[in-house]
C-alpha cells in the first residue's frame, strides 16, 4: 500500500513538473516576442531597439532561456511566479483574485451536471418504451454537441434581454450565476450521463440484479438500491476529464457572460504571451488536476474491495 501511494504521488508531481516545462517550452517556441506585445502593433517598426532591450531586461527576457527556465522553476517551487508582464500584478494575486469566481461557477456547474446526468440515466433506465428510451439516451450526445458560446448567447437572448430575469454580464450575486452555470453544466453533464446510462444498462443485466428480481424486488427498488451504487463508481474515474471540461468550458462561459475567472485570464495570458502568468496558471491547474486524480486513485481501493485485495496481494509479495 505505501508503495502504491508513493507511486501515485510521484506521478502527480511529475505531471505538474511536465506541465510547467511544456508550457514554458511552448511559450518560447512561439515566434512572437512577449516584449513586442507590450506595444501598439502598428508602432512596432518605430520602437527604438534600445527601448525594446530595456523592456526585455525589465522582465528578465534577455537572459538565456535555460537560465530563465531554472529561475522560474526555482521560484515556482516556493509558489513565487513573479509579476504579470501585462499588468505588473503578482501572478499569485492575479490568480487568487479570479479563482473564487471560477470555483463557484465550476462547483455549481458540476453539481448541476451530475444531477442532470443521474436524471437522464434514471429516466433512460426506468422507461420501458424503446423509442422514449432511445430519445433520452440521445440527450447526452446532444448536450456535448451544442457549442457553449451558442447556448450561452441563446440563453442570454431569452432570459436576460427578452425576459429580463437575469443580468446579462458581470458577477454580482446569485442571479448572475444562474445562466452561466446552466450553460457550463450542459456540456459537462454529457460524458457523465453517457457513462451512467451505459453502466446502468450493464448492471441491470448482471447476476445480482437477477437475484433481486427473483426475490421479488420492484424495478424502482432495484435501480435505486442495487444498480445505482455499483454503476456510479466508474463515474469517479472520469473526474479528471470532467475537471478538464469544466476549465475548458469556463473559458467561453466567462467570455460570453463577461465574468472574471481563470478561463478568461488564461486566454488573455496566452494571447499576450504573458510568460509568468501562463506558467503560474498552468502549474496551479496541473496541480489541481493531479490532485484530483491522486485522490481518486487513493479512494478507489477504499471503495472497491477487489482492488484492495489485489493491492494487499501485491504488497505481500
Amino acid at each position, binding site marked *: 500500500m505505501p508503495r502504491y501511494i508513493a507511486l501515485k504521488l510521484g506521478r502527480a508531481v511529475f505531471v505538474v513538473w511536465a506541465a510547467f516545462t511544456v508550457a514554458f517550452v511552448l511559450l518560447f517556441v512561439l515566434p512572437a516576442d512577449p516584449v513586442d506585445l507590450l506595444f501598439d502593433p502598428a508602432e512596432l517598426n518605430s520602437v527604438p531597439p534600445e527601448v525594446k532591450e530595456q523592456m526585455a531586461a525589465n522582465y528578465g527576457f534577455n537572459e538565456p532561456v535555460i537560465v530563465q527556465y531554472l529561475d522560474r522553476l526555482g521560484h515556482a517551487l516556493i509558489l513565487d511566479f513573479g509579476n504579470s508582464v501585462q499588468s505588473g500584478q503578482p501572478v499569485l494575486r492575479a490568480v487568487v483574485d479570479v479563482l473564487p469566481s471560477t470555483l463557484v461557477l465550476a462547483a455549481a456547474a458540476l453539481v448541476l451536471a451530475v444531477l442532470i446526468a443521474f436524471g437522464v440515466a434514471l429516466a433512460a433506465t426506468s422507461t420501458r418504451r424503446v423509442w422514449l428510451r432511445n430519445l433520452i439516451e440521445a440527450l447526452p450526445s446532444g448536450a456535448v454537441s451544442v457549442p457553449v458560446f451558442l447556448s450561452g448567447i441563446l440563453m442570454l437572448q431569452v432570459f436576460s434581454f427578452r425576459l429580463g430575469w437575469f443580468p446579462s454580464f458581470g458577477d454580482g450575486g446569485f442571479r448572475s450565476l444562474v445562466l452561466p452555470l446552466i450553460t457550463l453544466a450542459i456540456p459537462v453533464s454529457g460524458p457523465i450521463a453517457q457513462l451512467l446510462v451505459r453502466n446502468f444498462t450493464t448492471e441491470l443485466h448482471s447476476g445480482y440484479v437477477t437475484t433481486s428480481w427473483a426475490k421479488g424486488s420492484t424495478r424502482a427498488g432495484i435501480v435505486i438500491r442495487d444498480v445505482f451504487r455499483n454503476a456510479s463508481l466508474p463515474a469517479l474515474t472520469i473526474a479528471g476529464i470532467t475537471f478538464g471540461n469544466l476549465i475548458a468550458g469556463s473559458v467561453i462561459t466567462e*467570455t460570453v457572460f463577461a465574468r472574471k475567472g481563470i478561463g478568461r485570464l488564461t486566454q488573455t495570458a496566452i494571447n499576450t504571451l504573458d510568460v509568468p502568468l501562463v506558467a503560474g496558471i498552468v502549474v496551479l491547474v496541473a496541480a489541481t488536476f493531479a490532485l484530483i486524480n491522486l485522490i481518486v486513485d487513493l479512494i478507489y481501493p477504499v471503495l472497491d474491495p477487489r482492488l484492495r485485495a489485489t493491492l494487499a496481494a501485491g504488497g505481500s509479495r
Partner: protein
Amino acid sequence: MSDADDLRSSIENATRSRRRWPWIAGAAAAVLLVAGIGFAVTRGGTSSSAATSGEPVRGGTLQFALIDYQRSPDPQWGTNYAESLIGNNVTDKLTWQDPDTGEITPWLAESWEYNDALTEFTFRLRKDVTFSDGTPFDSAAVKANYDQYVRGDEKLGISPNGATLLPGYIETRTPDPYTAVVRFEKPLASFLQASSFTANAQPGFLALSTLKLNAEQRTDPTKVIGTGPFVYESWESQVKTVLVKRKGYNWAPPALKHPGEAYLDKIVFNTIPEASVRTGSLESGTIDATLDVGTTDEAPLEAKGYEIIHRGVSGTAILFNFNTQLFPTDDLAVRKAIQRGWDRSAVEKTVLTDSYKIATSVIAPSVQGYADYSGSVLKYDPDAARKLLDDAGWAPGPDGIRVKDGKKLTVKLLGISNLVVNKPAYESVQQDLKKIGVDLQLTVVPIPDYAANVAKAKTDWNVTAANRSRNDAAVLNLQYNPELGNSNFLTADSTGIDVPELTAALGKLETTLDPARRKEFAKAAQDLVVDKYALVNPVYDPAQVIAHAGYVHGILFDAQSRNHFVNTWKNDGK
C-alpha cells in the same frame, strides 16, 4: 478563440455512442431547440425612449460597455482602447487638440512658445490645477512625469512608455514653478501635438506620489492620482473600472466651454467581450452606451431608436505598406497597379457602413495637411492597372495570374484581424486584383501572430497592413522615414526610389509649425508616398462607433477619436 478547441475536446472526451440514430435524434433535438429559441428571440422588439435634449442635468451614473479592459490603471501604460479612454478621463494633458480643426489649444498649459529650431518648447502652466490628492500641478510635476514617461524606471519596473512619442527628449527645465521648458536633441514640430496626445500610452500627468510607485503598486487604483475630471473608485481586471466625479474640478479644456465639474457622478466601464451581449445589454437597458459596435449592428440599433455616433480615427488609413525590397513589390508598376486595381465602391457597398470611409490618401481627412488622391492614383481603373503591368513586362499566365521571367505575380499580405472590417475589405481587394492578374495572398491574424510575423516582414511579406492613430501629419515621417519606421524597408540602393529625396521630404514635417508650410510639406510627402513611389495602398479609414440611448448626451470624440465624458449627461433620472 478557443471555442473550437473546447468543442473538440468535449466531443473527444465523450464516450462514443453505439447506435447511430440517437446521434441523429440528438442533433435533431439540438436543432429544434436552437430554432425554437431563435424564433422566440427574433419576435418582437424593444425601443429606447425618445431623445429629449435640453439643459444639461447633473448627477447620475453612466453604464458604458466596451470590448477591452484596462490591464493596469496606470494611464501612461497601455495599448488598447479601454486603457487610453479611461486614462483620458482620469488625467489631463498640457494641450487640447481641436478634433475639427486640428488646432492645438490651451489646457493645463495656458500658453506656449518655441524656439525657431523647434527643439525647445516653453509652457506657461495654469496655476489653479491640483491633483486629486490635493498636491499642486506645477512644472516639477511636468518634469517628473516626462522624465519617467520617456526613460522608464528600471528599479520600479516602469517601462519607457513615451520613448516612441517623444524621440530625442533631453530634459524638462523648471525655471519657475509654473514654467516648464521641454528640450529635444532634434527639431520636433510634432511635439506640440504630442503634448495633447490622447491615444495609447498617453502623456497624462500623474501625481508625484504615484510616480514613486512600482508597477505592482500602481494596480491599486486609489493610488493612481491624476488631475482629471474623474478619479478612480475601483478597478477590477477583466470586469470593470469605476470612476467618480472629481470634486472641485474646474479646468476642462477652454475649447470645450465646460465650466466646473463633470455632469455625471459616476461612470462604470463594463468589459463585455461578446458583441451580441453588448448590443443586447443596450437594448435591455442594462447599459446606457456602448463602444465597439459591430458593422452589422449599426442599422438595427438605429432602427430601434438608438443613436449611433462615430468619428474616423485620425492618423493613417488602414493601408497596405509595400515591401520595396522583396519581389514582386520591388516593381513600381506592380505597386501602382495594385493601387488602381480594386473597386472602392464594392468595398463601400458590401463591407463598410456609413461610419467608415474609403481611404483617399495615406492619412485620414481629419489630419491637417491631408490631400485627396481619389481622383487620380487612388481611383479604380482596371484598364490602367492592366496597362501598367503589360508595359512592365508582366504577361498573363495559364491560370490568369501574370508571370514575368518565369515568376508569378504573387503578393503576400500580412494583416491584423483586430478590426472586423479588415478581412472582408482585403478579400474584396483580393477578388478585384485577381481580375487584373495579381494573386494577393492574405494572412490576416490576431495581434500576437501579427507581432511575431512583423519581425520577419523584411524577408517574408510583400505587404504589411495596419494603421496608426496620431492626428498629426508627422505620423508620415514616423512611419515612412527610412531612418525611423521605414515601413517600406528602403535601403540606400533601393531601385527606382530616391531615398535621400524621400528622407528629406518626410523630415521637413518636423521642422515647422507654420500651418501653411506644414500643409505644403505634408502634400509633398503624400505626393511621394502615395503617387510618385506608390509605397502604400490606402484601403479604408477606420472609425470608432458608439451606440447610445436617446437620454444620453454629450459623449465627445477627441482628435484621436477617444472619448471624454466631462461634458456627458443623461436625463433618464438614474
